[in-house]
């Protein structure tokens, strides 16, 4: 009986923890998937990125944010046809040290939108549009204007220019 009670308690705690983890995925920038689709046209990165949101539209916007976030802070993994891309700001402290700048940059309708365009045909569809607890998880194809984004961050003094080390 004691064993059964312990088992049930453990299951409940585990389920609750899973639920909390799931809720986290809606706001966390540590939990998104991004893959290189193909080598993009000059100055761009062509990726497939996932986002979470309460609605499909919100998840799509989150995915766009994630794509730009990955280019700035995480880098983009390579695949069989494309090399991996390093982050524009490899310094892990950049986000914290320029918090106000990035709050404005990634604000709803913020400047980040100028550097990303969705290339998904219509709305996210098929297996790229999944109902998850509390909302949707969508996968979209996007083109990130990587070179333009890099120039913008360099001009704003966020990223270091290559020439600045010499």
């Amino acid at each position, binding site marked *: 009986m004691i064993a059964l009670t312990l088992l049930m308690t453990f299951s409940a705690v585990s389920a609750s923890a899973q639920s909390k983890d799931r809720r986290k995925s809606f706001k966390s920038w540590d939990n998104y998937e991004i893959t290189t689709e193909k080598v993009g046209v000059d100055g761009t990165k062509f990726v497939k990125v996932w986002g979470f949101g309460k609605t499909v539209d919100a998840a799509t916007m989150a995915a766009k944010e994630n794509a730009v976030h990955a280019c700035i802070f995480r880098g983009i993994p390579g695949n069989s046809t494309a090399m991996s891309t390093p982050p524009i700001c490899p310094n892990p402290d950049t986000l914290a040290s320029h918090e106000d700048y990035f709050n404005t940059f990634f604000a709803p309708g913020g400047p980040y939108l100028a550097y990303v365009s969705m290339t998904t045909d219509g709305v996210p*569809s098929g*297996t790229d*549009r999944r*109902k998850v607890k509390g909302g949707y998880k969508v996968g979209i194809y996007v083109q990130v204007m990587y070179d333009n984004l890099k120039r913008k961050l360099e001009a704003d003094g966020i990223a270091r220019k290559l020439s600045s080390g010499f």
Partner: protein
Amino acid sequence: MLKRLILTATAAILCCSMTAQEKIKQVVTSDYNRNSVSMVAIQRGDSYDSATTSAVASFSPGEKFDINRINTKTLRISKLRSEAVYQSEVDGVVGGVGFAKEILASIFNRDSKGMMNDKTVRYRGNYDAKDQDVINARAARVGEDALGDLGQKLVAASYVVVNDFYKIERETDKRGKVYWSTNARAYAYKLDLDESSLYDFYEKCWIYDEDDEATRAAKISAFNNLAIGLVPVASASTSATSSTVEDAAAECLSGLITGLENQISDWEVAVTVSARRPLRAKIGTKEGLKNGDRYRAYSYREDNNGNLVSVPRGFLRATEVSSNTGMSIGETEPSEFYQISGLANIDEGWTIKQSNDLGLGVMAGIKTGSMGKLALAVDIDFLMDVKTGGSMSYALFSGSLDLKQAKYVPLFFGIGYGYGLHLSRFFEVMPYAMIGMDHIGYSSTDNSKDRFVRESALVLEPGVRAAVNVAYPLQVFVKAFVDWNPEFIQGSLYKLYNETVGHKSGFGLQAGLKWTF
């Protein structure tokens, strides 16, 4: 006790895990690509061989398939045509033919010198490309030229369909007209070719202009010794009757393809919904879509373990079919659909997958009215046309037996036309008109030629049918109608017997269940 509990829990977890794994396998996706087929006839060595072979050779499996033109068009199995051939017998014969070589030679346009090219593969890749592929290609540095590469994965989607006709029988009707009936069975085989064996094929068999004679000879030899097989994937049966053996065989073939389609998931067209109000999806004539074709909608969710699950969400039928038989330029004209079942409204982005049906509704119920106080009725409706607004045209067939006067065998048969209007997808109202014959077959000793006419009366039946979805394809229906059975269109014996039976013009009701096949 604790040991038993742990054992039970472990078993339950294992069971759940296996069920979950099963579900993962069953996820329906919108990944559909064109398949290619080669049609082959089995010859038995009798007089029907030429007719059946000719029917298979001239048959086109439809716009959705590419055709691999191979040299082997017949297979010989010496067995009496009174029996079907078995899968094992066909497997044996198919294994002895180098179908894989023939298919690859056809796809890569191999000539007598062993030279090959990828023109067909690139054409098929471009033709199969969806709008998303075109948009992706434009966003990539390689550009739209890369669309042809999509044809590489279509090579493995090559099938051989082996068709056998058996129990071919000659029948003669009362007027002396001759009919032929045949049973047919098709066995589908898929090319057993994965990515690595395809690359192996390129490596060992592809001859380049700069190859010397020795290399060429080695590559030709490698091609001749290719060890790529075929895997049996499905079989289907049907039968047909027609005025000639060839026509009967030809009629069977489309039924066989539909039967195989129902079993080979890769043959079922799947696509995502591109718009709602009206429901639209980017498929059309290229995928063999026809008005009234039925599709099933699926949405996706992730379960608690993060596994993807496809959730069936109702059925829909094609209404306006777009002509998309050309290369995609990223702006494919979609076809329109009408949702016929499901609690939720089918939404943009959901997947729809082909789910063939006959479009045949069979109704059984009870009928009461002036043409019989209690009759057992069986109706059939055949869906002829569906409009985007939900209106549907039906051909109607009706039959009933008056149970109250059963010893006189009063039977009613009717044919008609109905126009169904959907107030919602759950509820259909159908005004209809029917012309029928009420027959009272009492005079068992009368053998005169016009007996049937004299025992019958013409009946006109306008009415309205209302049907409600219970759990698709099950519906409950009610029919209200007026039977008009005036004396001047009644046979002489009918009039006589009807004095006892008592059928007359008037109002009637019918209710029962409908199942759509």
